[in-house]
């Protein structure tokens, strides 16, 4: 461990006083982080409402949904969702959730607010790029939502938008006209925002660490955002050109993804020479790392929050960091496991299967280290720590079903069934959401200077934890019974007996979704009425707890912090209690030094 001699740059800006520069077009990473959080909040509400519509339609297809025919007279005449509108809702649910919630909240929102503070910097390396990154993402969201209101309806090709369905245009049926074009434009814009953000995160982490903040002393949350930004830089740099090629196929008559001889609705298309599999390769080369973009910040957040409530160091921080890095590295070698049955050379299925299975090794190590951290802890049960523990449980469940899908010989049966839906919801969606919840309960006092209500938070945890198991566990059984996903209704004979299971899932989804209202209410109520937070309410060690709640404009009020310790000094005898803060110059007696 060596002391980094990098000096923090002085804040070049003075604090703006006008409303616009302070709250709208702000250069302050803390405001931008909150803006990202707000965007994710609007997006998650939208995505959740869409999932309710899907679940209601699947369980009670003939029951009219109030108000829906007013919102979309074509998509839901009389309040009954048409098959094509069901697919549109599904496509928009997934796109909004994956891009505008699971990418923006854990990475862009928390990363923006906290990464500069945790390394002791006054702001991001490129504040103007940072502002641009948020507003570009905001525009991308508007463009996507606009597709709800265009003539032939929102896109319906799924969040994966496989060509040629996504590429040939309106001839392919409803939703494939303007709506699909807007989808491709929105995602292309989104990529630009994420590329700017990733560059910023990388540069800030490498260049703006304060004195004494060596790489080895960085909190694992910072490491999580840093690794994620490296993955994001490489992944979004591939999706961006892929989306541009898709837009060209749709609007300029090119044939990157459209083969010759296509006959759609009795029309022979003029395209020739393209490959539908090219889109899948480009998409999944981004798409698989994207899964880790969603979950690795959660790894970091959990690994930073859990020790603060367990009152002991995390078990094996180096091994955990090594696991996170190897997961990021392996994520680029496994995209083909989404394509075992796509018609690519079957030999490559084996080549993609083996590294996919290898990812289970670092994932297992991480789970064992978190579990081992809880062993013998003096656990303080708060909303944040409960969501950390819940994260470990749902990540185990979601990770294990990956064993099945990573093997082509089993994927041949389970591919494109609800088993896959269960797997990715547990391992990336629910787990990442638990990371977001844990982060929110933990850092809300720092962000707004007020505590969140613990009683509401605990009710939120119990209902959500039991709820997600009731929703997603039965989907494994549906998949094992051969229930195909992305079906607007189950008319096939062999699927009819499974409809009661769908009803159970729908009831669970409605209740669990309603339980999220507790969280939304808690956020708003605590923002204005919550108990005032002290600087370090959780007795935590990292740098954000060495400044006021909320931090001043330049984060540390003109001080230049010096870091003396790693982020793991819990369970030791310090002057403040059973922990030593990173900025505390005191010596830790070797006998007491935290073990790993």
């Amino acid at each position: 461990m060596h002391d980094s001699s990098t000096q923090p740059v002085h804040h070049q800006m003075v604090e703006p006083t006008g409303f616009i520069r302070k709250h709208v077009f702000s250069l302050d990473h803390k405001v931008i982080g909150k803006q990202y959080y707000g965007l994710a909040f609007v997006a998650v509400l939208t995505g959740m409402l869409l999932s309710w519509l899907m679940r209601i339609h699947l369980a009670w297809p003939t029951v009219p949904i109030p108000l829906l025919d007013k919102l979309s007279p074509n998509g839901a005449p009389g309040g009954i969702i048409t098959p094509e509108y069901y697919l549109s809702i599904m496509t928009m649910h997934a796109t909004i959730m994956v891009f505008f919630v699971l990418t923006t909240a854990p990475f862009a929102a928390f990363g923006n607010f906290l990464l500069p503070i945790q390394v002791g910097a006054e702001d991001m390396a490129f504040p103007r790029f940072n502002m641009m990154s948020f507003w570009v993402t905001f525009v991308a969201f508007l463009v996507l939502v606009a597709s709800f209101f265009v003539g032939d309806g929102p896109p319906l090709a799924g969040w994966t938008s496989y060509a040629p369905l996504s590429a040939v245009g309106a001839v392919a049926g409803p939703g494939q006209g303007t709506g699909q074009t807007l989808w491709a434009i929105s995602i292309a814009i989104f990529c630009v925002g994420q590329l700017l953000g990733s560059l910023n995160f990388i540069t800030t982490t490498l260049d703006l660490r304060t004195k004494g903040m060596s790489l080895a002393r960085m909190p694992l949350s910072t490491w999580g955002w840093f690794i994620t930004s490296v993955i994001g830089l490489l992944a979004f740099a591939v999706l961006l050109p892929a989306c541009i090629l898709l837009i060209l196929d749709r609007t300029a008559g090119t044939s990157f993804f459209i083969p010759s001889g296509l006959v759609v609705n009795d029309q022979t298309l003029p395209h020739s020479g393209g490959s539908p599999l090219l889109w899948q390769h480009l998409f999944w080369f981004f798409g698989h790392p994207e899964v880790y973009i969603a979950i690795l910040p959660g790894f970091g957040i959990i690994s930073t929050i859990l020790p603060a409530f367990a009152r002991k160091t995390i078990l094996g921080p180096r091994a955990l960091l090594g696991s996170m890095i190897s997961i990021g590295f392996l994520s680029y070698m496994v995209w083909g496991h989404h394509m075992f049955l796509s018609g690519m050379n079957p030999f490559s299925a084996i080549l993609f299967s083996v590294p996919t299975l290898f990812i289970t090794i670092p994932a297992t190590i991480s789970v064992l280290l978190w579990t081992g951290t809880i062993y013998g802890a003096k656990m303080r049960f708060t909303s944040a720590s409960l969501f950390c523990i819940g994260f470990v449980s749902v990540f185990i469940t979601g990770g294990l079903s990956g064993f099945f899908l990573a093997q082509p010989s089993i994927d041949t049966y389970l591919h494109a069934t609800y088993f896959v839906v269960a797997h990715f919801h547990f391992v990336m969606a629910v787990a990442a959401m638990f990371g977001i919840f844990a982060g929110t309960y933990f850092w809300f006092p720092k962000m707004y200077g007020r505590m969140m209500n613990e009683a509401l938070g605990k009710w939120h945890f119990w209902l959500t934890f039991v709820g997600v198991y009731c929703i997603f566990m039965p989907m494994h059984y549906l998949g094992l019974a051969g229930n195909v996903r992305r079906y607007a209704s189950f008319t096939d004979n062999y699927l009819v007996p499974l409809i009661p299971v769908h009803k159970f899932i729908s009831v669970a989804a409605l209740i669990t979704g309603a339980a999220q209202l507790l969280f939304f209410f808690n956020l708003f109520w605590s923002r204005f009425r919550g108990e005032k937070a002290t600087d370090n309410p959780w007795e935590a060690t990292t740098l954000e707890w060495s400044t006021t709640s909320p931090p001043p404009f330049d984060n540390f009020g003109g001080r230049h912090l010096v870091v003396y310790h790693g982020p793991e000094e819990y369970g030791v005898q310090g002057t403040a209690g059973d922990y030593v803060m990173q900025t505390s110059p005191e010596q830790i007696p070797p006998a007491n030094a935290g073990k790993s």
Partner: protein
Amino acid sequence: MGRLFAVVLTIITIISAALVIMHVWWMPVDISTVGPRIDSQLDETMWATGILFIVSQLLLGYFVFTSGENKEKRAVKYFPGGATPLVLFAIALVGAEILVLSFVGSRVWAAVYMSPADPGSLQVDLAAEQFAFYFRYAGPDGQFGTIHPDKVQDGNGNYFGLDPENDVAARDDIIVGTLTIPVNRPVLLTMHSKDMIHSFYVPELRIQQDIVPGLTIPLHFTATQTGKYEIVCTQLCGLGHYSMRAFLEVVSQDQFDQWLKSQSGD
């Protein structure tokens, strides 16, 4: 609070595992020669992951249970031996499991997707389109007519784009909407799509394969039980995706010969 968590997690674990062990919802009957190997690979994986699931969830619950006990009176305890044994344990256990599953699983996969079809296979052509499957048999001459994409027209039933006027082999091709095959005889499906990516999935055959426009994709299998089964599309292909299906009828060789004769008599 820790005790409550342990109890809730234990209940969730027991119910989840019990429903799998009792096969309340399970795979349909297997009617394919490769099915038993696929099923045993799945069973093997289910046992391995099932045990890991139960042990790790219960262990997590137990640690949470004890972490809240008498906590003010005692010091924190560290995991005996630290992280190293856990890391080595994970590498050894999961590594061994991966090696076994990959080794056995790759052979199963290869048997289905990488081995050549039996030369005596019944050859059937499949054309997929929004939102139907069509099947083509060679007819009495044993020859398939050539496919011309520009001649594909649903209106007059020319789903394959045949040219019977100039192509003698195409004249007796049999085109039907149901896949009828004899039991216990290898079948080689040659699959095309004229518009979108579709997928051929028969849960009872344990086989699934995307049908990609621009590619000709072979798939071979042997059905071992007579009966009527559903063929469903599993690749999102447009608004009617959920209704895109056909039937697979597995019949005796005699019935098949009769059926073929009656079809070519038309």
